[in-house]
């Protein structure tokens, strides 16, 4: 990293993003209230069905995060722009958060529904594996200090992790079918689709806000790193 290259990174401007943050939080609250208001208790599940309004949107958006990780990791390998690496890392962190939340909510739903806290079905198990994969990704970033190496290795690990997801899902599903275990039924009634989609969009806004702010922090820190590196090498700065 030459001194000249050090100044291609600019400190991000928060701009109007904090306002968007407020909007996202309020929109989510509104979406949840709307879902409560317009959908009656399910015949079979009663009130429990309301848990799905948090669980399912979280799961969908977790997938979006990991897709972003894959996309920006590819971009980084292609263009070697540090910003792509930082976006991928931010998406990975937010994705891991949503992933953990999906698992906990899944367990909260499983317990009253089936009487157990956990089932080894394809969806829940794959979600757990993905959590471990991206926990590993975050650990890799934490344990590699040199920025260029960290970015390169994270990109590779992120892409490998992402392509593993369909493979894991398929394996676990095959494992379950062979042992003739009842697969967990899909329990979504079309009546509730609007509320689900509304909440999914709301969580998407939260996701966007989270990734953006995480990226701002990461980029600012990266610029600070380069500024002090350049200072260590000697000479005046024009940051």
């Amino acid at each position, binding site marked *: 990293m030459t001194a000249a290259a050090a100044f291609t990174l600019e400190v991000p401007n928060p701009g109007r993003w904090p306002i968007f943050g407020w909007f996202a939080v309020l929109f989510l609250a509104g979406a949840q209230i709307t879902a409560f208001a317009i959908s009656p208790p399910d015949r079979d599940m*009663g009130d429990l069905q309301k848990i799905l309004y948090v669980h399912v949107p979280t799961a969908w958006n977790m997938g979006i995060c990991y897709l972003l990780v894959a996309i920006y990791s590819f971009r980084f390998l292609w263009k070697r722009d540090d910003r792509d690496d930082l976006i991928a890392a931010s998406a990975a962190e937010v994705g891991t958060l949503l992933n953990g939340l999906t698992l906990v909510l899944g367990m909260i739903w499983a317990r009253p529904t089936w009487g157990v806290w956990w089932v080894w079905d394809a969806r829940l198990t794959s979600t757990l594996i993905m959590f471990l994969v991206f926990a590993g990704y975050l650990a890799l970033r934490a344990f590699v200090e040199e920025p260029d190496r960290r970015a390169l290795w994270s990109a590779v690990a992120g892409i490998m992790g992402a392509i593993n997801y369909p493979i894991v899902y398929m394996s676990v599903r095959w494992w379950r079918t062979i042992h003739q275990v009842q697969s967990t039924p899909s329990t979504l009634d079309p009546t509730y689709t609007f509320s689900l989609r509304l909440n999914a969009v709301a969580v998407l806004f939260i996701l966007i806000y989270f990734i953006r702010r*995480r990226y701002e922090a990461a980029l*600012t820190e990266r610029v600070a790193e380069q500024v002090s590196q350049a200072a260590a090498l000697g000479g005046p700065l024009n940051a």
Partner: protein
Amino acid sequence: MPEMIASNGYYVAAAYAVGWLCILGYLLRLHSLLRRSREALAHAKTIGGAP
């Protein structure tokens, strides 16, 4: 039947509580990360002797 619905209500409440706790918790983390990164940048600039 009422007692089943009542206990289910606990689960629903728990789900929403956990969801919001995560969101608020992460917002706090973002706040502290942003502050730390700005401090790091200010510190780096003073070392570098930038105006």
